[in-house]
């Protein structure tokens, strides 16, 4: 069966739980998207920009030294090499053409790590849209470089001071803006979350990751991988990798959530520790208390710091199509250093979570063939890592 269904459900998950004011524009978006997908000229143009502007296809790089160190065969899908430094541009390019197709003039977006914000500001600059980005104050502090980049690109960055001052609150604020300016504004959502049709649209645009990886691995290894591994915030880079392998029954999907300070403390492991609920327009696993109030979260990676997750991942979990695990802040830092030292590639803190999990796979299944989605590069995280290293060193001295 094709997923999602007409009402935007992946099994029990997804749907469209939104204030009435947004109903019209979501139906309009859905209709335009289906038209857009059949419009050969637009698709050709998108292809062109993915290739010439963003830098696709990205290499599927055999990480020889890391493989030797771990005792498994690791290929990295190098989304970190894309323009703006992460997979987010696959989606923002797709959606900016959609926004143009719909005749919208203004783009709004939420951002956590700032990667989606930068990727949105980039395409808005290139294609001539006014761009306003909502970002939690806490995230603006920890991802300063990206705030500056967005400003250079001509976007306004609005600090969000409500709630935990992170991604969830930036989403709330973007939705409030959208409800208010629904006529001329296009909401460019950054992950496979939100009301239908966003989880579908973002998954389709990110599926280029898995499509390329699948044909690349067959060319290089003449077989399918044993494992696909990716970090899961909202889940767009992960579903982008997993989806094109959906019918490959033997390939195991592993989604790595942010374990933060630990699974019994503050974390962002919605699929592991959450309960089903409704947030930002969709039914999915959610970190919430027994009364349905959304819980505070924490991750060292701003891009994973979100209490919810895309509905398609909830569906994957329910049908056991993927296995979801958690990696803590500390372990992610370990993953970060491991890749930097062994391969000369500095990863973003988000995929550093996935990188650490390779050690667990290596322990269980020596010799297995793994594709890991290296969703972004680490430039944006240097301050955070420096700060943490400082703390560790101070402790050593003390």
């Amino acid at each position, binding site marked *: 069966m094709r997923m999602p269904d007409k009402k935007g459900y992946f099994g029990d998950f997804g749907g469209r739980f939104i204030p009435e*004011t947004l109903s019209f524009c979501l139906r309009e978006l859905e209709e335009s998207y289906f038209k857009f997908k059949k419009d050969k000229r637009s698709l050709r143009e998108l292809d062109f920009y993915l290739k010439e502007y963003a830098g696709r296809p990205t290499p599927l790089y055999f990480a020889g030294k890391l493989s030797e160190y771990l005792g498994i065969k690791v290929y990295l899908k190098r989304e970190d090499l894309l323009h703006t430094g992460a997979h987010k541009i696959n989606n923002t390019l797709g959606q900016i053409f959609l926004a143009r197709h719909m005749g919208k003039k203004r783009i709004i977006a939420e951002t956590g790590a700032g990667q989606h914000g930068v990727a949105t500001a980039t395409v808005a600059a290139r294609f001539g849209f006014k761009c306003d980005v909502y970002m939690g104050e806490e995230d603006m502090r920890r991802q300063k470089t990206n705030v500056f980049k967005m400003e250079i690109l001509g976007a306004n960055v609005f600090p969000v001071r409500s709630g935990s001052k992170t991604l969830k609150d930036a989403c709330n604020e973007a939705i409030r803006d959208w409800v208010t300016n629904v006529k001329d504004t296009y909401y460019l959502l950054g992950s496979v979350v939100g009301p239908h049709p966003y989880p579908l649209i973002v998954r389709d645009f990110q599926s280029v990751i898995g499509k390329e990886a699948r044909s690349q691995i067959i060319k290089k290894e003449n077989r399918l991988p044993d494992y696909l591994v990716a970090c899961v915030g909202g889940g767009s880079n992960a579903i982008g990798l997993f989806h094109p392998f959906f019918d490959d029954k033997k390939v195991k999907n592993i989604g790595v959530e942010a374990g933060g300070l630990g699974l019994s403390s503050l974390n962002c492991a919605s699929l592991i520790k959450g309960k089903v609920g409704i947030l930002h327009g969709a039914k999915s696993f959610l970190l919430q208390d027994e009364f349905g109030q959304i819980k505070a979260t924490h991750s060292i990676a701003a891009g994973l710091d979100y209490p919810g997750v895309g509905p398609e991942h909830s569906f994957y979990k329910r049908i056991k199509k993927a296995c979801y695990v958690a990696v803590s802040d500390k372990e992610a830092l370990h993953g970060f250093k491991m890749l930097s030292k062994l391969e000369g590639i500095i990863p973003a803190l988000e995929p550093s979570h996935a990188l650490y999990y390779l050690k667990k796979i290596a322990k269980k299944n020596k010799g297995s063939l793994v594709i890991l989605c290296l969703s972004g590069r680490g430039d944006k995280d240097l301050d955070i890592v420096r700060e943490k290293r400082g703390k560790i060193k101070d402790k050593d001295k003390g």
Partner: protein
Amino acid sequence: MGKIENKFRELKAKKKKAFIVYIPFGFPSISLSGKIITSLDKSGVDFIEVGFPFSDPLADGTIIQKATQISLKNGVNPDYFFAGLEKLKSKVKAPLIILTYYNPVYMLGLKKFLKKSKDAGVGGIMIVDLPIEEAGNYIKEAQKYELDTIFFVTPATEFERAQKIMKLCRGFVYYVSVTGITGPKDFFIKSVLEHIKRLKSCTDIAICVGFGIHNREQVRKLTKESDGIIVGSAIVKYIDDHYQEKNFLNMLSTYVKGFQE
């Protein structure tokens, strides 16, 4: 016939329009919000919308966001909430309507939420983020408990869809004056009136207007076509600004009456 419909009949006989007030439960404190509700009832408010708080109220502006945070900080949960309403049941004449978001309802369990609402003497329910497409089960269950389901129609709702929504409304239709979030605002009243007039031509159910209303002038104009008006943020802000004053409940009563003169 439900409590809400009854009340509208009464009002109609007196040639009066409904004056509806929104109060977040547990704000500024659990005990004071009970007193506020009783006092509003005495001041001649026709219906009281009682807000059950949700941590992420994405259709609300800063005033109600703040009140929601305070109400959650005060520990409001379903037990406190329904116990609070139960206590008001015998004291308050104005039908109570619950306004909330879907997640807390879903977590408690839809049936349980409706049963508790019924037991607490509530007349109707509004769930901000439950549009008609997702509301099939909710409508069915609410009917079993004889609770009115109130849905929203907005300036962005197409006419055909509005007709569909109005057919699913019991009690009244909530017409949202502006595309936007809650909070005091001046908006273009003429187009609201035209829209309501058109909607009234194809339904018998009462239509009340809310969102943004903050002065007597707006009320006067809007009641020309609508069957009632709903004031939320303006009153929440008034409470926030004045609740520590000695004469607060009397002041609030005077303030609220000022809308109705």
